[in-house]
Every structure is written in C-alpha cells, then in structure tokens.
C-alpha cells in the first residue's frame, strides 16, 4: 500500500486531527481538571492516560453504535449514562480480578468518568459517525491528552520532586519546586505548553485577551 496515499484517507485524517492540531487539552480545552491534578508525576500520568484512552475510545464506539436511537433531547443524559455505566463495570471487574491495580486506579475512576473529553468526542463526532471512525476519533483525541500529560508530567516531576518514575535524577541540593507539584502551580506549566503547542501547530492566535 502506498503510505503517502494513506495520509489522504478519511480514517487517517480523523485520527490525526484529534491527535495533533485539535489537541484535546490545548485546542479543544477538555480534560483540564484532571490534567492539572494528575500530571505531577510520570507514573500518575501513565495510569490516567491509559485509562482515558481506553474509556474514550470504547465509549465513543458505544455511542456510535447507539446513535440512531438516541433521542436528540436526551443526548447528554445518554452519554453520561453509557459512559459511567461502562466505567463502573470495568472498575468492578478490576476490583474483582486485579485488586492491586484497582487500588492504584481508585481515585482516577471518578476523574475519568467526569473527564470532558469523553463527552466532548461523543457529542462532536460519535453521535453522527460510524463506529470505525468514532473509534479512531476517540483514539486520536485521547492519545493527544495522553502525550500532553506525559510531557507535563516529565517536566513537573523533575522540577517538583527531583525524580522520574520515582528514581532520583537531580542532585540532593536541588531545591524542588513544590508549587509545581500542586494543581495550582500546574496552570503555569500548562500555559507554557499551550503557548509552545500553538506555535508548533501553527494555529491561528485567538483574539485579544
């Protein structure tokens, strides 16, 4: 297959839109609460990122399957019911079979259900497109969230804890930036990432203010 041609196919375009230019966090402005809270350490970012990728991809597919029956008036309720039921079932399954992983993920479950990315993609794409494309759309957007988390966590863990994945990487004398480990300080990191990202993606600047 000619790889060049692949770049012009619909599935690829759907995926790459969410993955790059329409980055979930810096373009769509979704999933901010969890990004701030969870990107303080690389291991948290990885756990949350994987969880979100899994949930967004499958939830989008689920909504896409049901799309012809979902009443226009009750779209939001339906998204929420489907997503939270799915996540809670997965959580119960983990609790029963992988209790240690479930204990690690405990606090994330709530964060994942209420993560706006899930509903954002369901409303923007899955409700009006086929299952395959919705899967790719969900995958693209959630992966953009994932790498955003990873990049932020990489910097925040080094500066805020002096470690990477728990292993010490800075000398003992390095004064850790405690502020950046907290969600309050994360805003600044996120703003810088936003700045750099918009430059790199050559996006049009928003209007003043």
């Amino acid at each position, binding site marked *: 297959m000619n790889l060049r041609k692949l770049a012009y196919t619909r599935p690829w375009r759907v995926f790459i839109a969410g993955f790059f230019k329409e980055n979930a966090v810096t373009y769509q402005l979704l999933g901010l609460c969890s990004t701030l809270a969870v990107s303080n350490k690389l291991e*948290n970012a990885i756990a949350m990122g994987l969880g979100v990728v899994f949930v967004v991809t499958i939830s989008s597919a689920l909504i896409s399957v049901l799309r012809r029956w979902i009443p226009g008036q009750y*779209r939001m309720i339906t998204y929420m019911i489907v997503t939270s039921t799915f996540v809670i*079932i997965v959580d119960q399954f983990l609790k029963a079979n992988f209790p240690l992983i479930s204990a690690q993920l*405990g606090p994330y479950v709530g964060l994942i259900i209420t993560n706006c990315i899930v509903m954002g993609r369901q409303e923007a794409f899955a409700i*009006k497109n086929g299952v395959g494309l919705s899967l790719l759309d969900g995958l693209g957007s959630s992966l953009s969230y994932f790498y955003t988390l990873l990049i932020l966590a990489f910097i925040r863990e080094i500066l805020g804890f002096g470690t990477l994945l728990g292993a010490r990487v800075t000398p003992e004398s390095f004064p850790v930036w*405690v502020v950046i480990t907290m969600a309050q300080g994360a805003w600044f990191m996120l703003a810088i990432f936003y700045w750099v990202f918009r430059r790199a993606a050559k996006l049009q600047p928003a209007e003043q203010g």
Partner: protein
Amino acid sequence: MKERKESDPAAQRSSGRAESKTQNPKSKILKKLLDVVFIVVLGVVSVALLLAAQSYSAPAVARFRETRLKTNVLSAAGIPWTKDDFKQVFEERVKEQSGAGSTWFAADSLVIAEFKGRGLWGMIEGIVVLDSSLTRIVAVRVLAQEETPGLGDRIKEPSYLATYRGKTAEEPLELAMRHAATEPNEVDAITGATLSSQALVSVVTSSVSRLRTAAKGGAQ
C-alpha cells in the same frame, strides 16, 4: 481543499433520530413518549448491569479485603507469614477482641485496630498498632485511600507513616505547622498535602482513643 462535512448522511445534524418536516400533534407526542421510553429503558438496563457487576465482584472484593487486613496486621505485629499460610498464622497468633462497642486485635503484646475515616477525596482505611501499655503508637498503615495522586496519596508511603512510630497515644495528635515535629504528639505534614495529612492525623487520633477505651476495658 475544503473538507467534507463530518457527518454520516443517515444521521441528522444534532439528533440521531430522523425527524420529518411535517409532524402532526399525535406523532409529536408519540415521539416524545418514545424518547422517554428510551431513556427509561437505558436507565433500567444500566442499573441492572451495575447491580450485576457489583454482585459479581462482591465475593472477590471481600476476599481481597480480608487478605489485605490479615497480612497487614501480621506484618505490623512483626509476625512472619507467607501467601499460603497467612490465614492459619492469623488464626493462631492474633486474637480478635471486642469491648466498649468496638472490635480490635491482640497479637503478642500489641494491640491493633482498624480505622476508617474521611480524607479529602474519599475514605482512608488503615490499621493502627499500640504497644501493650497503650501509651505509644507502634505503627500506622494505610490500606486504602483516594487522595490526590502524587501529593495526598503519599500518606500511604511507609517512609511517611514511619514518622508516626513512637508518637504518644495518650494525647490527641496534631500536625506540626511551620516547624518540624518535635513533640511526641506532633506529626509532620506532607508538603503540598496539608489537608490529606490533617485528615490522616484526625482519623488516627480518634481511632487511637477508641482503641484505648476498648482495650482498657479488658479482653473478652
């Protein structure tokens, strides 16, 4: 080149259901009714699935909790155990007691109780171990918590919990603010996680006082 509009021709703009241009009142009401029926059915199915999932996981969850409690009690009391014999060892070396409305465990000369209290985001569960004279805390272990990842959840780290060792069980514990903990009733807070640290201190304090009252009443 302008991109094709992102919508599946079979679905309408903002609703999944096709809507006809001319609708007489009867079909409008019928449609509204069907919409409600859809939601109700979806709700009922979801509730049923959740209850099924819960009952499916309940036995395994109970087993896991029992294992977690017993192995931690044994470790906190310094009693060796293995994956295969911990239940037996627990039976032999740990005595469950009750008194003054609460239950606790006695192992060798140590006195152990479970605690469960409110953290910042969810419940904090753990065990606290006192010495035989009921005056000093020997150990605190956090078995479950839902605090902020990377910050509040450090209350579960053994290195932090080790700071509780040797603290007094006779007075309420306090968080040391703006200075390192020196007094026997002071505990250091985790930087950036004051609220979670305070929550743990409060939960441990009330658990310790309950345990002392119960254990003083004598073994049953």
